[in-house]
């Protein structure tokens, strides 16, 4: 291949690495700490923040428009201009030439509309950052502190309870239900958002970055989700909706809590109705006034499944109540036939249904999409985990320990790298420099591949990184020794380089493939921390081969293509 073609390939690799590394650089370099804290928090916090900010901005804007409507719009509200412009166009009104506070406000049909736009802006901003944070090279828990807990389904306890042993696929679906429930509880968790995922077919791995507090985690695992059925007061609900329509700024307090308007009598509460949404969790659907008195507590639910209406094909949620629950529910439904009943979870209305007839034991709720029905059945079952979990292993690392690990790891990499650099230049002079450049490039490729595949950087992968540094030069040493031999025979520089690379090729291949085999076996069969090490090592070996056989070769070809080619390979020869 021509030099130019190969140069293009190398440049392409550089560009690809840049693309992969961009989110990481942006996240660690340009996002302020305070935003990072907010973004890594739970989605609930983000929502509260967005609602709070929007409430505040709306208030400020209203104050501004009444005091100085002709003033130029302050820079912090500039994001409203494009939305206002679009609205002007949509209503076929002439777009104003300059954007004063008033002209921007006129771009919104109602206060509610303005509020939603502002909230949407904050939400989008944070959620896109949250997406970004998912794409960056993450530090493992051992480096930034945090907890990881491996849980396993307690099959024995389940067998005792139900009398039958779950099959492996049943077990997985039970564990998946557990995960869904734990995810529902995330919001209660607080500052940082845990990552919960299935491992194998009956284990759950929970990782909580930042906070290493076993106490809090235990309460999270035990759960305190409450589920109730409460009757809806439809008359007051419509009154409430009209009121909020007129006063959109007075729905939430600044911290995102709902305001209870004065006209509500005692025993009635205004609650927000949520469905799953743009935050990936509950979105505000509307507002409902419900009876404060609890119609039926969720502890009486013994089972809930998603079914299908045999005639309409609509998904239904069927749940069974225990005998006490059946009594209470029968009484409730017979006195309130024809009214709306709300399913309330943790103070939020999650679903509503009309009571058509008195019901005793088996309740069927219709009127959902498939996903909603699935969610509701999970909600209904949240009161208890379908299969109990036992802690298999638990690790918690305080933040300072992690920082020490990062610091010493970084120093070790830098010192090791420096030693290898100096060694190569001392032994191979100019060629050593080529190898060193390749080594640096190797690290860049390694980091970008790690971030592209969303692998986390753990303490063990730092070890893998260090090892890769040492082993990456090996391919270069093999080639350089070969070139030296060829030179010793009296060949020209260019011919020696060509022969050296040619002869070293299969040696390097064979030698590296065996190490890759070891690394791949480790990454497939090893446990968490070992995986990190093996992945780093495998990626490192492949990229070091690419560097030694392709990039360094190119460097030689370019440096030897001039009129007076010089090959610098040792301090001893000229």
């Amino acid at each position, binding site marked *: 291949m021509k030099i130019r073609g190969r140069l293009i390939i190398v440049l392409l690799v550089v560009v690809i690495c840049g693309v992969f590394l961009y989110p990481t650089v942006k996240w660690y370099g340009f996002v*302020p*700490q*305070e935003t990072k*804290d907010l973004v890594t928090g739970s989605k609930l916090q983000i929502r*509260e923040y967005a609602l*709070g900010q929007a409430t505040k901005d709306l208030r400020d804007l209203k104050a501004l428009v009444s005091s100085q409507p002709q003033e130029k719009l302050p820079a912090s509200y500039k994001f409203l201009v494009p939305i206002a412009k679009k609205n002007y166009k949509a209503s076929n009104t002439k777009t104003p030439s300059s954007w004063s506070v008033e002209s921007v406000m006129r771009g919104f049909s109602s206060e509610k509309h303005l509020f939603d736009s502002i909230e949407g802006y904050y939400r989008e901003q944070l959620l896109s950052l949250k997406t970004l944070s998912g794409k960056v090279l993450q530090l493992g828990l051992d480096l930034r*502190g945090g907890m990881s807990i491996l849980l396993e389904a307690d099959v024995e306890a389940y067998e005792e309870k139900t009398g039958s042993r779950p099959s492996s696929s049943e077990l997985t679906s039970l564990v998946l239900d557990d995960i869904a429930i734990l995810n529902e509880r995330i919001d209660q968790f607080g500052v940082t958002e845990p990552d919960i995922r299935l491992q194998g077919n009956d284990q759950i791995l929970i990782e909580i970055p*930042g906070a*290493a*507090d*076993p106490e809090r985690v235990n309460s999270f695992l035990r759960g305190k989700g409450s589920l109730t059925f409460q009757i809806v007061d439809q008359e007051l609900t419509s009154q409430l909706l009209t009121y909020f329509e007129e006063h959109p700024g007075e729905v939430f307090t*600044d*911290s995102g809590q709902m305001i209870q308007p004065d006209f509500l009598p005692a025993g009635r509460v205004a609650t927000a109705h949520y469905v799953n949404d743009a935050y990936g969790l509950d979105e505000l659907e509307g507002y409902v006034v419900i009876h404060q008195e609890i119609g039926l507590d969720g502890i009486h639910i013994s089972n809930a499944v998603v079914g299908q209406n045999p005639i309409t094909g609509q998904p239904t949620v069927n749940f069974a109540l225990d005998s006490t629950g059946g009594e209470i529910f029968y009484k409730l439904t017979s006195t309130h036939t024809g009214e709306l009943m709300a399913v309330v979870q943790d103070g939020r209305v999650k679903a509503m249904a009309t009571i058509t007839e008195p019901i005793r034991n088996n309740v069927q709720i219709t009127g959902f999409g498939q996903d909603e029905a699935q969610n509701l059945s999970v909600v209904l079952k949240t009161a208890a985990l379908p299969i109990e979990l036992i*802690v*298999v*292993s*638990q*690790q*918690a*690392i*305080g*933040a300072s*320990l992690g920082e020490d*690990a990062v610091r*010493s*790891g970084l120093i*070790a990499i830098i010192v*090791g790298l420096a*030693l*290898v650099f100096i*060694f*190569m230049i001392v032994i191979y002079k100019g060629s050593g420099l080529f190898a060193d450049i390749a080594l640096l490039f190797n690290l860049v490729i390694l980091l970008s591949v790690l971030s592209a595949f969303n692998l986390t950087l753990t*303490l063990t992968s*730092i*070890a893998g990184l*260090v*090892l890769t540094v*040492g082993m990456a030069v*090996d391919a270069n*040493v093999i080639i350089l*020794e070969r070139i030296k*031999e060829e030179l010793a*025979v009296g060949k020209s520089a260019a011919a020696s380089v060509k022969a050296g690379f*040619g002869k070293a*090729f*299969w040696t390097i291949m*064979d*030698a*590296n493939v*065996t*190490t*890759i*085999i*070891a*690394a791949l076996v480790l990454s497939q*069969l*090893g*446990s968490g921390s*070992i995986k990190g090490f093996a992945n780093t*090592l495998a990626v490192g070996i492949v990229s070091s081969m690419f560097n030694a056989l392709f990039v360094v070769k190119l460097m030689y070809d370019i440096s030897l293509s001039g009129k007076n080619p010089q090959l610098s390979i040792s301090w001893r020869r000229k």
Partner: protein
Amino acid sequence: MAKKTYAITKYRFVALAVSILLLVGGVVGFFVHDGFNLSIDFQSGFSQRVQIAPQAVEFSYDGSDTLTLNLTGSTLSFVTRDSSGSHYQEFTSSEYPTVGSLVDAINKSVNGVKATALDKEVRTSDLVAGFGLPLTLTSEKATLNSTQSAHTPFITIDEIRDALPQHAQVQIVGEPYKQTFQIRLSNDDNLSEGELSEMVHSALSDSFGSGSIVVLQSDFVGPKYSSTLISGSILIVIVAIALILLYIWFRFKLAYALASIITLVHDTLVLVGFIVVFQLEASTTTIAAILTIIGYTLNNVIVIFDRVRENKPLLKGYDLRSLLDTSVSQSFTRTLYSSLTTVFAILPLALLATGAIQLFAIEMAFGIVVGAYSANFLAPALLLWITKEKGPSKVVRTPKVEVAPEVVTEAEPVEQEGGTDAQADVGIPTIERKLKGKRQQKK
């Protein structure tokens, strides 16, 4: 540039003796120490790193917003979430070097927070972040502890041992004055993580005061996990070795594959012996070290065998011994340099890191040295023996090394590593090779 040919194979019996000695050493160590020093990875249990650190600052908060306190590095940060969204304030140790100045600044600028320094002279950079951070402050007092200075008298490891239950193992981590200890408990009574951690905490609190125990790290491994891990680890090693054997068999001949596998089993056992003799804690990272060494040793052996294979058609007049000698000598500089660079890279980690990673680095460094030895001495000797047994008729036994009288340009002295007397000057066979990178596949 001519390279010296070392009569490596002459030392094959020495190599055998050394290897046997190393292996026997490992076996003796195993019995003397009554087995491995297994980490809780392999032996269900509980391991906690705690620091005895005096309390340094107290915080309380009486405002109506949500306020979280965090300590990262030596920077203290407060996040207030209120009507204006979130508000972030930070206090660095470079700005406020002592806790006294830090506390004054916090009281002045963070609304609603009351900070009290218990010892004003404590350096801010000595504050320790244990469990429980980030912390939501309330009217109840929360404290931060600090590493004590090097001059104050400190609690010794024996005092810690006395405070804890009989079967607890205690190690010092880092400088003694920092009072950081790794505590390990086996879990014989099948207790939960909470119970074990409570047991350690109350035992230490009773002796050293409840406020001054900072937990830095805590690991718990249930019995089920460790049993699957042991079988898993053995499986990993066997699968890896089998796959590698297949690959070498495919690329070389079976004799080469056998010699490589015996060499790597030898290296693995010597490394395991090293771990047993020095009672290094065996954990999952040990498995990683062993497998890396397997890969690494093979790397060396293959480079040498590859040279043997390449030289075979070129050095027709050579018997197997001199062929091996020549090939090993030709690869010698490479083996030396490659091992050196890897040791260079791994050594800082062995010196600077702590815990499992430090052990990993030490094991790696040792393994690389052993690997360099076995690739140069043991593997060629093994290949010689195996090939001889398979077909003694093919080998022409000529004790004297033949000299290939090729172009010998300026001689470059190569560092002489042992056996100087046994060298014979042999030019590198420089017959214009017709293979040009193509390798002979196994026949």
